[in-house]
């Protein structure tokens, strides 16, 4: 069951974070979610399962690709890589997000209304 916190993530946010993380290095699902949690200082409470529908969406749109491999802990894992289209999409999304964030910040900034 979803909780309130997840619902507060806007649509596409999780995908954006996944793409950004994968841009640094290819990762498998578990590592990916751990990385996102850790990097966000656990501020974002992400239900681990919600990662997978997002990954499937990215796969379907061919923004990432996946290959079976062996992890450092010797597990059979599926490693996700960013595609060229994925990199482009990420750039676009980030710039859009920044614009939005700037707009929101301006409105929320004290004493300027």
């Amino acid at each position: 069951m979803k909780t309130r916190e997840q619902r507060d993530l806007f649509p596409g946010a999780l995908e954006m974070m996944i793409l950004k993380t994968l841009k640094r290095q290819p990762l498998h699902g578990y590592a990916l979610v751990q990385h996102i949690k850790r990097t966000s200082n656990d501020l974002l409470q992400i239900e681990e399962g919600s990662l997978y529908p997002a990954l499937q969406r990215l796969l379907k749109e061919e923004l990432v690709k996946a290959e079976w491999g062996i992890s450092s802990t010797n597990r059979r894992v599926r490693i996700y890589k960013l595609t060229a289209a994925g990199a482009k999409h990420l750039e676009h999304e980030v710039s859009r997000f920044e614009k939005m964030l700037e707009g929101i910040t301006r409105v929320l900034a004290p004493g300027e209304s």
Partner: protein
Amino acid sequence: MMWLNQLFSRRRLYNDLSEEIREHLGEKIEDLVAGGMSRKEATHAARREFGNVRLTEEDSRAVWRWAAIEDFFMDVRFGARMLRKNPGFAAVAIVTLALGIAANATIFTMVSGWMLRPPRIKDHTGVVVILSTNPAKAKEYGWDQNPVSVPDFVVWREQSHSFEDMVASQLSDFALTGEGEPERFEGMRVSASYFDVLGVPPALGRTFLPGEDQPGHDQVVILSDGLWQRRFGSNPKVVGEAVRLNGNSYKVVGIMPKGHRLGYYGPQMWTPLVFPPQSLLPAARDDRSLDVMARLKSGVSVETAKAEMAALAQRSEQTYPGTNKGWGATAWPIQKYLADEFKVAMRLLMGTAIFVLLIACANIASLQLTRAAARQREFAVRVALGASRFRLVRQLLVESLLVALAGGGLGLLLASWGVALLRGALNWSDYVTSLSGEVTLDNTVLAFTLGASVCAAILFGLAPALHGTALDLHSTLKEGGRAGSQSTARNRTHSVLVTAEITLALALLIGAGLDIQDLLHTLYAGFGIDPNQVLTANISLSSTRYKEPSKQADFFKNVVQHLDALPGVISAGATTTLVPSATEPERAVTFSIAGQPVLLRTAREQTAYYAISSDYLRTQRIPLLRGRSFLPTDNVQAPPVALVNQAFVQRYFPNEEPLGKRVRLDTTASDRADWTEIVGVVGDVKDLARERKDMSQVYEPSLQRPSPGMTLVVRTRSDPTAFAPMLRRAVWDVDEDQPITRVQTMNQVIADYRTGGVTVCTMMGTFAGLALGLAVIGVFGVMAYTVAQRTHEMGIRMALGAKRSDVLRIVLMKGIFLGAIGVAIGLGLGASLMWLQQASEGVVMPFDQRAPVYLAAVFLISLTVLLATYVPARRATKVDPIVALRHE
């Protein structure tokens, strides 16, 4: 081709996904164990942080699917499986629905064939029917579509701008003589361009040429396919040959294609319509007998044509107030005009059929509700596994849809049988027989059936689906949980459904009952005559030999004398109009009474009018109440005399002596010079027993008022049907070229008269029976379910000392309560619907005559509801308290 790849690689995708998620959990657990948790705790924690595994998998897979469609098919597969697992429910629901659908589809074949199918002419949307209207008369008769007079037609055709062409037609009888027996046919005289306006080409030969509707050029005839086949053996050489019609030679110029027919009329031949000079006189504007059609110019709307016709009529009204005051004109699209005839009957039958379907739906809804209750745990488990309520409702609706489609299919099958029966029953006149050919299960009917099935699915599926899925997870999942509030809500819905069924069934019973009462009333009420052992036959003198009225009088005088002289004949007579008659409309004429102000013709009172031979009253056994009857001496040389009926006296001479009073009947175009003296009062002859109960009637002797068309009436000592050959012989002894039609007994005439009514009543009765049956099943089902549910309660009651009679009373009371509500609403509904129907027909039978029908319907429904309640109630009394309580 991406999507195609996806389709085939999907299984692999799904397997990858499951494995990936398994690995994810494994890794997480290992991490947590490494962090110092026990394996058990770690497993819990991992799952908690991951969320709902199945839902995640499903959501992930959903990415790859055309979600809506695939979910739908999944629901269909699952639904079909559920129905197979529960064949009893499926069978009852499907059959119940099939009955309702079959009733609707069968009736709808008539709506489709008669009202929705366009007439078979070229571009029918461009053809309008021109009608005279008269709102004042419309109130009296209940419809406002009148034919047009010859002078009006001529003026309107000349002055209107909306139409390419305007044509007139008029029904007319033709006697065909020559080879074989003389025969009489219904034919039609039409304007020369009639077939051009319709855009129907002949199958053979040609249609009429311009100018052939001018005097002297009109001796040409076009035959119908049917007549050509029957009388001329489909011989193409007939075209160009001459035939003898009404004693004159006509050249056959064409044959119309098979199945050419427009609306009510089924003429066997067409000749040009010529207007004799006297029909063009201003006074002839009062004689409205032309059927007029017109084809719109392209780009001209019906509205424009209507407005123009109204303006033209207004001009006629101003110029000729004497004949046209109060008369307007309008234009109707031809399809609407043809469909209008069936509107009332179809509304009644369709309404009835829909009631049956509604009851069927209520039954299935109630079944579904019971079934949903039994499936609560299934739903609860699915919700616990992450199914949304929307998903469950959709699943249930899909199941309903499956039932509906199966029911619709079976219903169609039943309907094809119903249609065959219906077509067989539609046989009481040539016209109706030809109509029955239009009754087919066509695409429109199929579409209607599909639509009705889907609507039914929503009707009987939605409420149970919403109810069944409003779950309280905890109490439902707990074993033996009795979700109290829910079962209350369910019981309430059950009660509403049962009440609705009783209401609808009662309304239907009342409707059918009243219709049957009307029918019986018409069939068996006294007609004011004695119809037994009377033979009748129609004679229409259309030959030019009988142009002179005195010749007509002589002919009928001769024939009646011949008949009288035959052995086995008690008496013989003739009348211009036979009442009660199936085919001939009442002839109504306006009249004036001497000593009262003479009004404009249009403002005068109307009465039914008959010219009769002197022995007609004796032959029909119409009683003479006062004065004298007609004598053979009441001929042209004697002063004119008349007889009136009792209703006439009551209406026009309530406190006066009617004998010796004088009246003047407008049987001719211009006012007569002479007044007629009333010499006797006779009994009322009921026409349409219900519709014209106190129609005033006036008789004049046919010797003084000859007519070319009369019906012979012969009262015989023995079986009248055996007398038919002798009757023909007697007529042909006078004129061997004279066709004789409609030789039938008076009883046949009366029966024919309402055979249509019998068919409609049979249908209404069938539907009412069906409705009653379904309602009984519904009530029984719900009561049985209620009893089963309350077994526990009954056990406690009985353990606490309640007697069996108390238990019986508790259950019966519920049935009686619901029944009483249903009866109360049903009575109101039935009464108001019937009132509406009758008001639209312009007649309302007094309530005291109707009361027995209402009582009988209420009694019948109460009895059946009681029975349907009593059986389950008896079962409740058999509850063994120990067993009921141990069940806990």
